[in-house]
């Protein structure tokens, strides 16, 4: 798992976001045990208390749970994970919209560009490129 941090947000908030992404991508497989706080802190290069705080928040959101002696686990609740993925997607979409807006690209044009990019990705328009 690759960790990176920006300068404008609290570190614990960025940890929460990145662990969620890790769950979504399978870097932290659902239903499985998470590394210890110390190991996660070392891996991310952050303060262990900050990591603890992020995990406590994820626990209160029902994405991870503690078992008294065995440690912390990622939830196996597919519905909860689906909800989390949509909320992560929502954030990325808002960022995309803000970026398009700052370039004065309107909704119609933005959607057309997005659609074209998707087609390129799936190779639907190999011949019409450029």
């Amino acid at each position, binding site marked *: 798992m690759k960790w990176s941090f920006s300068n404008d947000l609290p570190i614990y908030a960025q940890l929460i976001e990145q662990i969620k992404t890790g769950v979504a991508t399978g870097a932290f497989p659902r239903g499985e045990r998470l590394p210890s706080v*110390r190991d996660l802190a070392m891996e991310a290069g952050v303060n262990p208390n*900050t990591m603890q705080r992020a995990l406590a928040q994820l626990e209160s959101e029902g994405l991870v749970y503690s078992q008294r002696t065995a440690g912390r686990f990622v939830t196996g609740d597919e519905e909860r994970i689906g909800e989390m993925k949509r909320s992560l997607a929502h954030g990325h979409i808002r960022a995309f919209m803000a970026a398009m807006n700052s370039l004065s690209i309107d909704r119609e044009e933005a959607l057309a560009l997005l659609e074209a990019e998707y087609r390129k990705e799936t190779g639907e328009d190999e011949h019409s490129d450029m």
Partner: protein
Amino acid sequence: MNILTCKDLTKKYGRKTALDGANLTIESGHIVGLLGPNGSGKTTLIKLANGLLTPDNGSVEVCGMRPGRETHALVSYLPERAVLPLWMTAAQTVDFYADFYTDFSREAAQEMLAHLQIDPKQRIRQMSKGTREKVQLIMVMSRRAKLYLLDEPIGGVDPATRDYILNTIISHYNPEAAVLISTHLIADVEKILDDVLLIRQGQVVMQAPVDRIREEQGMSVDALFREVFKC
């Protein structure tokens, strides 16, 4: 529990006031960054906390005691410059620290030396500046102290070594101990800190959690520092 408490702490060198009524407390379980421009009193504060200097006014206490023989057993100090005797080998510095400090773990030291591929038979004299600093840090972090005072631990080393040093500090995290790190390389240490202490001209101008600064100011501690101490 309070590990370090300073009240109106003042230190003068002749007519120059290095610390001017500094007030602060550091609790157990916290890693604190001591940040300030050159000459703001960082090293003076650290030297007062480990009893190398005595205050002209006010007080400093480590675990409720004035610095002295008892607190020396509780404080692990990394000086600004490596002070290991040049004629010693890495293995001899391990013996030296083990003789001096009952809380020193040979195993921890040997493991870290091996991890960094430092030959135990190599003399300090033959080591590069960076390697000397690594050996010194290994000695300091191999103690089970209550208070770690690290004066510029990442100043003169390359970025990979810097990461190793910061990781060593995280991996030795102990909820019963506190770590005070003085530095001006804020961007590098920010992520491993609980709190920052900003000092200017011998006075504490701010003590706050890193994430609260980021939350309230919408900027990193590094950016805040540049703004507060703009030349």
